[in-house]
């Protein structure tokens, strides 16, 4: 008999604890709950079906990412960043490459910048489409929108595959440029996918945006004020849904984003419906960027000739590189002591920091809302736990 089997059966308590004049039920949602988007756990105290207290518990997927990166060379960490937010490996690559380039003072050639922007926007498209699919799945839509989103994602993943050789773990960017040039015909293929996307977004919006059940489920649910969002360091679509105009593509103008014409959609209510709609609108803006970028990709080298892959030792110093990843501000903070591996390597994961406001959004809502609020925060546990 194992130790667990010998334990006496726990006494079942329906209403374990009292608070004030009412009795509370404590439910551990996760880590094996179907809608926590991975091995995430929320300890929820319920009054009836209303949430009184909520505690996010994470770390089930902790892989010691930062310490491992400190023990290995700069380049060997590049494939490991793929595993952070495994939905958007290309943006992870870019943020890390940006930090190292700042540290080593490398210049990225124009063609490589274009390729980076194109892949990043494609990543954003598929991430937002899937997020909306998951969100409606959490609302109980038996997977129909999710399957539609996956159909679209499939086309984009095919593009990634022909470009990088991998569908999800792309490992594509290098310090000072990209790993390989675009294959023949890739641009035409990408153009076709991008041209088809607005039709898909329209279809999605016709199906969902004005559905009464969806509106009733999401409007006014999980409100987040702009003030609290700023104080908590929330970034990305959640912040913009709360009405704060903060998009690193506009603020930092990293890469070549200042050359493209696009707008930043803002929400007025900060509720789940705004978070959903902001993503739909951002997808439309991404399509605009892609249309501009695909038409004007210049010829030229794809990597800085100064960049060397072997024996790479940046000079002593520190650098912080950040980009607007689909989920928010993704930053890498590096300290170099002149050696082949970073002295300190730190990831600023958007999912993790956005999760800190989860309790504020959920308290007072019902347990069914908790699930869709979590869905609308858009987390990937690989990034939260690292």
């Amino acid at each position, binding site marked *: 008999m194992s130790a667990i089997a010998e334990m006496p059966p726990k006494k079942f308590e329906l209403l374990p604890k009292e608070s004030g004049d009412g009795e509370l039920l404590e439910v551990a949602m996760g880590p094996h709950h179907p809608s926590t988007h991975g091995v995430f756990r929320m300890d929820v105290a319920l009054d009836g079906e209303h949430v009184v207290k909520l505690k996010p518990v994470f770390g089930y997927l902790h892989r010691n990412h930062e310490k491992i990166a400190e023990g290995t060379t700069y380049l060997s960490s590049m494939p490991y960043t793929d595993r952070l937010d495994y939905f958007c490996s290309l943006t992870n690559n870019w943020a890390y490459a940006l930090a190292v380039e700042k540290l080593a003072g490398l210049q990225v050639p124009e063609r490589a910048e274009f390729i980076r922007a194109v892949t990043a926007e494609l990543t954003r498209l598929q991430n937002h489409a899937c997020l909306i699919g998951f969100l409606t799945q*959490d609302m109980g839509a038996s997977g129909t929108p999710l399957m539609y989103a996956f159909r679209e994602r499939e086309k984009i993943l095919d593009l990634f595959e022909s470009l990088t050789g991998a569908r999800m773990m792309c490992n594509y960017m290098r310090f000072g440029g990209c790993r390989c040039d675009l294959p023949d015909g890739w641009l035409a293929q990408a153009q076709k996918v991008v041209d088809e996307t607005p039709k898909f977004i329209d279809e999605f919006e016709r199906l969902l945006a004005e559905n009464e059940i969806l509106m009733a489920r999401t409007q006014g649910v999980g409100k987040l004020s702009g003030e609290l969002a700023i104080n908590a360091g929330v970034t990305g679509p959640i912040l913009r849904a709360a009405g704060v105009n903060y998009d690193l593509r506009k603020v930092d103008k990293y890469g070549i984003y200042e050359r493209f014409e696009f707008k930043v959609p803002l929400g007025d209510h900060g509720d789940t419906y705004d978070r959903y709609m902001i993503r739909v609108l951002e997808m439309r803006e991404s399509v605009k960027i892609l249309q501009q970028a695909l038409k004007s990709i210049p010829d030229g080298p794809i990597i800085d000739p100064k960049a060397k892959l072997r024996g790479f030792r940046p000079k002593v110093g520190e650098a912080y590189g950040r980009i607007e990843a689909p989920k928010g501000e993704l930053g890498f903070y590096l300290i170099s002591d002149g050696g082949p591996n970073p002295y300190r390597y730190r990831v600023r994961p958007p999912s993790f920091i956005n999760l800190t406001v989860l309790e504020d959004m959920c308290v007072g809502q019902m347990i*069914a809302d908790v699930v869709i609020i979590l869905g609308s925060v858009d987390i990937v546990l690989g990034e939260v736990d690292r």
Partner: protein
Amino acid sequence: MDQIFVALKHWLLGQLATILPAWLLPVVSALMSIAAIIGVFATLFAIMTILERKGLGRIQNRYGPNRVGPFGFLQPAADGIKAIIKEDVVPRAADKVVHFLAPVVLVIPALLVYSVLPIGRNMVAIDLDAGLLFFFAVGAASELAVFMAGWSSRNKYALLGAMRAVAQMVSYEIPLILSTISVVMITGTLSPVKIVEAQSTHAGLLPDWFVFTPWGFAGFILFMISANAEANRSPFDLPEGESELVAGYFTEYSGFKFALFFLAEYLGLFAVSGLGITLFLGGWNSPFAALDFVPSWAWFFAKLLGLIVLFIWTRGTLPRLRVDQLMNFAWKFMIPMVLINLVAAAAWHYVGGGFARWFVSGAIVLGSYLLLGRGLFHGKGITKRTYRYAE
């Protein structure tokens, strides 16, 4: 052809009468009806599972099961074998007896209700005077079974699911029963057989089905919505809402007990659809006099299949409601609406023939629908939104 099964049963009984003592014959007759009901509807359950998975698959751009047998049609058999040979896990803290009894208690009423459903001409197991009452009385017992399942599992999700399920079933039972009352008022009987007979005539092109009257149409829609909620199907599948409560009241069930929950759920769905057909869609009557040569039971099952497709379609399309919205919908829309529908049915009866009663009855139904429907969303601030862009 129409009476083939009735004739078969009589012939069999006639043969048995020579061997068996007379007092045993009614028992044998009842057993034959029971076997027929279980056989037919369990097969329908198997067909429905494959149909649902295929249909959902098509709605969602995928194939659905297509590995077992031709086009995957042997999938239910594989699933059944899997359910039987799977380990039956009972939680340590569970109340073992109640945990075991719950699926059994759930299946019994689900099967019992079929005894009053006329599935063809002269094809009803018992022609009860108060058949409709029997249907709802026996159906009410399933709530207790759901509660037993949720409580005995000693699982918080199961308990929450059971509480939700019972609250939902109690709430939606009221509109379900009240929507049938309008039919009872017009026909003046509680017997399903007589209600079907009342709809067997043809008036002009359309048959005299109650769905082709203003109150009957509204009643049918209300009945089907309540039936959807009673059967815990999307968009009212909160008790087992996967994204919230894992699997609701049957979270802690596995193996064949789990399959029994499934069976009971689908049997309940068929039964309530069958009742809807009996009450509003003319039962086993054919839509046109010219089509009367088709056997009556074929019409019943054709209509049942149509309603099943409707259920699958709804499930593939709509997201789930929230608990408070579900209750709001029941108490603020469904119940007032069925009560007004009773008035509409009374108006239909008393205004007299011709256009006038269509107008009065239709106006009552439509007006109340518009008013109540508007009231449902009023003051909640649920609107379409426009978004601004930063420069």
